C-alpha cells in the first residue's frame, strides 16, 4: 500500500536534480521554428517597391476576412499596387492561407507571436506598418 506511494515520491524527488525545462518567458523568449506562422507582413522587391499587385487573392482566401486591399494604378502601364493594405490582427487566425494564395510572394507570416495590447485599434495594421514588420 505504502510502497507505490513511496515510489512515486522517489520519482518526484529524482526530478528535483534535473535541469528545468521551463523558460522564464517575458525575460527569455522561445525560439520558434522556421515555418512558424506569426504576424503577417508585406515584402518589398529588390528595388524597394512593394511586391503586392493588389490582386485581391489574399482577401478572397482569408477565412476570417481580416484583409482589406484597396488597389491603385501607377504612372506606368499595367502598374497596379495597393493604395491601402489593412490586416486586422484581431481577426487574423494566422492560418497562412494568404501566403499560400499570393501569386507574387508579397505577403508572408513572420515569426512574431506576441499580440497583447491595451487597445484594439493598435492591432489594425496598415500598409506602412505591414511593410515595417
Amino acid at each position, binding site marked *: 500500500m505504502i510502497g507505490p506511494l513511496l515510489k*512515486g515520491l522517489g520519482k518526484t524527488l529524482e526530478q528535483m536534480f534535473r535541469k528545468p525545462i521551463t523558460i522564464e518567458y517575458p525575460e527569455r523568449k522561445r525560439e520558434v521554428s522556421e515555418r512558424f506562422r506569426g504576424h503577417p507582413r508585406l515584402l518589398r522587391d529588390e528595388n524597394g517597391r512593394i511586391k503586392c499587385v493588389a490582386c485581391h487573392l489574399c482577401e478572397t482566401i482569408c*477565412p476570417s476576412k481580416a484583409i482589406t486591399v484597396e488597389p491603385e494604378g501607377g504612372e506606368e502601364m499595367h502598374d497596379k499596387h495597393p493604395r491601402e493594405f489593412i490586416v486586422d490582427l484581431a481577426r487574423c487566425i494566422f492560418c497562412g492561407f494568404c501566403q*499560400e494564395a499570393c501569386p507574387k510572394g508579397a505577403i508572408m507570416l513572420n515569426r512574431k507571436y506576441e499580440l497583447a495590447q491595451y487597445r484594439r485599434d493598435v492591432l489594425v495594421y496598415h500598409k506602412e506598418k505591414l511593410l515595417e514588420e
Partner: protein
Amino acid sequence: MGRGGVYPRPLITRCKRHPKEKSLSQVKENRTRGEIRPVLAQRYADGWGVGAKRGRLQPSASPPFAATRRQVSVEKPMSQYPERLILNVGPQHPSTHGVLRVVVELEGEVVVRCTPDIGYLHRGIEKLMEARTYQQCLPLTDRIDYLAGSANNLGFVLAVEKLLGVEVPPRARYIRVIIAEMTRIASHLFWLGTHAHDLGAMTPLFYAFREREQLMDLFEAVAGGRLFPCYFRIGGLARDLPDGWTTEVREFCRTFPDKMKDYETLLTRNPIWIRRTRDVGVLTVDEVLDYGLSGPVARGSGIAWDVRRADPYCGYEEFDFVVPVGQNGDTYDRYLVRLEEMRQSCRIIEQALDRLPEGDIAVDDPTITYPKKTDVYTRIESLIQHFLLVEEGIRVPEGEVFHHTEAPKGELAFFIVSDGTSRPFRVRARTPSFVNLQVLSKLAEGRLLADLIALIGTIDIVLADVDR
C-alpha cells in the same frame, strides 16, 4: 439565474430553520459565505446538517454525511425534497475542462441528479462552413476539438476527398497517419495530466505536458502552428516535411515509452488513484451501445470498436497495432486503455516512418490543389489555374457523403451535402465529446460530488468539441 455576468454561486432552495437561526435569510447567509458560523456549527453538532432530511436524522444518529452511497429516487419532484441543494459546477470551473455548466442536485454529498448545460462555446461552425469554400473550412475544423486539431482536419479532408473521388499519394497518406497518431498522443497526454490533476495528483500534469510540448514543437516545425496545425489540405498536404523532422519524431518515439513509465509510477499502482478511479463510473456494454459512446469510453467497457480497425481509412489496415479494451468499464480501465493507446500510437508512427515513401505530397490536379509556387511565378497557365482555384474554390460534385474517423476522443464523423458549388450546402459534424457527454448524468447519479469530477475527466470531453 441569468447567464450574463452572474457568478454561479451555490443556490440554496428551501431548508429547515434551526431554532437558533432567526430567519431564512440567515440560513442562506450562513451557507453561502462558506464559513462555519456559530449557528451553522450548532446545526452540524445537532445533526441537522445542510442537506439532512426532515425528521430522518436524529441528533444522536451518525453524522449526516456518513451515508454516502444511499439510493435516492430521482423521479420525485423537487418539492418533495425541501432540503435538496442545487449546485452549479461551472461554467467557470477548472475541472469542467472548458465551459461546461453542470447543475447538480445534491443530498448531502450525494448527487441525486446532474444536468449538463452546454452551449457556452457554440461558435456555429457548421453554419459558418456553409458560407465558406471547402478550403476555408479547414481552419474551422481545427477548432472543433482544439486539443486534436489535426484529427479534425483529417476527418474533414477525407470526407471531401471521398466526395471528390480522389486518392492522395502514398507519401501524403503516411504523413497523415503520423500526424494523426501524434495528435492522439498529444490529446491523451492532455487528458492524463488534467484528469490526474482534477483528482488531486498534480505531478503527472507536468510530466504529461513536458512530452506534449515536444509534440507541439514537432507540429510547429512541420506546419507552423501548434494547436491549430492546419497542415492537411484537400488532396494532400500543405508542404512536405522539413529536413530532419523524421529523425526528431523517431527520437520522440524512442524515448516516449520510458516517459510513460513515469506516469505509471505515479498513478497506476498508487492506492489513492485506485480508490478514486476503480469502480467509479462503471459502464456496461449495453449502456455504451444505448448511448452510442465511442472511443476509449466504449473500449474501456470491453467493446473493441475502433474505426481504424473496423472501417480502415488512410491505409490503417497496413499497420500492426492492438486495440486495447478494458474489462470492468470503470474509470481505472479507461485510464489503462488510453495509456495503452498512446503506446500503440507510438508503434504506428514508427511503422509509418519505416515505410514512408518518397513522392508527391498532393494530388496533381489543378482544380483541387494549388500548382507549385515556382510554376505560378513563371508559367501563365499555372497562374491562371492558381487564380481560378483561389477565386472559385474546389468545385465538389453534387451529392452527399459520410465519413467517420477515429479521433482521440472517439468517433468523429463528417456528413457533407454538396450542391455542386465550391461551398458546402450543409456540413454536420458528429463529434465524440457531444455524444460521450450524454452519459455523464447517468454515471453521476447516486455518486459523490467528488466522483463527478472524476467522471467529467474520464469521459474526456472538450467543450469546443461538444458545442462546435
